């Protein structure tokens, strides 16, 4: 029985007519030795014949004119062009991801990174938003080469001072990586 299971895929390919010559020879040998598999293969072939024997159906003559009319009146938005082929479930997923990103960016925080003290400046990065390049750092927000190097940043610009997540005197600065 175990050996027969190993032949399942090959018998499937044989019935589908997609088995190569070596596979066909192997299946034939097995079917010669195994009446149960031979009967199964024959039944599957018969099933395939029944499905293939179903008549092709054709639409009513009204379909094409109706379709032509709807095609000509259809308005296509940029959204359709980009997302039109997606399923509602795929659209929901994309919308969910987009919403999360918007919320995260809106809050100015995407990920938290405890990068630790930057060099010997005493500054510490407490939050980083890679998408916007905005970093909240503890006061002071030095822009020394050591600090920038430690954070993997460059070209820092101090934006503003403000309390941030309960940390007093935190300064927000924009850096480029």
């Amino acid at each position: 029985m175990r050996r027969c299971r190993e032949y399942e895929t090959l018998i499937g390919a044989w019935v589908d007519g997609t088995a190569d010559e070596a596979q066909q020879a192997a299946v034939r040998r097995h079917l010669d030795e195994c009446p149960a598999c031979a009967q199964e293969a024959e039944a599957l072939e018969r099933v395939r014949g029944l499905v293939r024997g179903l008549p092709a159906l054709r639409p009513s003559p009204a379909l094409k004119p109706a379709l032509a009319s709807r095609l000509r009146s259809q308005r296509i938005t940029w959204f359709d062009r980009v997302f039109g082929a997606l399923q509602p479930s795929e659209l929901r997923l994309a919308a969910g991801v987009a919403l999360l990103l918007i919320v995260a960016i809106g809050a100015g925080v995407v990920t938290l990174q405890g990068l630790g003290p930057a060099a010997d400046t005493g500054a510490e990065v407490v939050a980083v938003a890679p998408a916007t390049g905005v970093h909240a750092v503890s006061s002071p927000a030095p822009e020394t080469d050591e600090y920038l190097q430690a954070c993997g940043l460059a070209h820092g610009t101090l934006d503003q001072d403000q309390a941030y997540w309960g940390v007093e005197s935190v300064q927000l600065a924009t850096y480029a990586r």
Partner: protein
Amino acid sequence: MSSNQVATLVQRARAGDVAAFEALIEPHIGRLYSYLARMVGDPFEAEDLTQEAILRAHRAIGSFRGGATFQTWLYRIGTNIAVDALRRRGRLKARVTSLDDPLQAEEGSVAREVRDPQRDPQELAEAAELTGRVQQAIAQLTPKLRAVVLLFDMQGLSYEEIAEALRLPLGTVKSRLFNARSRLKELLEPYVVEAN
């Protein structure tokens, strides 16, 4: 239609040329309809779904990048729409097409299709009954199995094209096809055994 012609039509359709899109879709309408009618087991609903699939393809032609053939892309959209329709209406087991429905085959209606002057009425009745039984059995498959077996056996797509159309690994296509046939064998046992 050559791949160059398809590419040209796709380009024109993307630019808003409806006639180009119609030329692109024309060779596929009948086959898409036939596939959807077998998927949902309802010739009237299949007309709506065919329209829906083609309109969606028209809206989304800008996103067709040519990675898949136009045909497989269209079958992907059609399959998604059919599966959604079955889900939406809460009948994953599609209702069975009645032979009394005015189904039309490429060479005439279903009833006419099985009519053959060389065959006697009893033979015709048996052929019609068999067609109905096969459609019934297909309707009892899950939509996933149904799509694979119809695309392979009725629409003549290859394993690779089905994998592309349904976004499945090749191995999954093969195993679903095998499972679909095994299930159909159980459902159609009297007919299969009779043939043996």
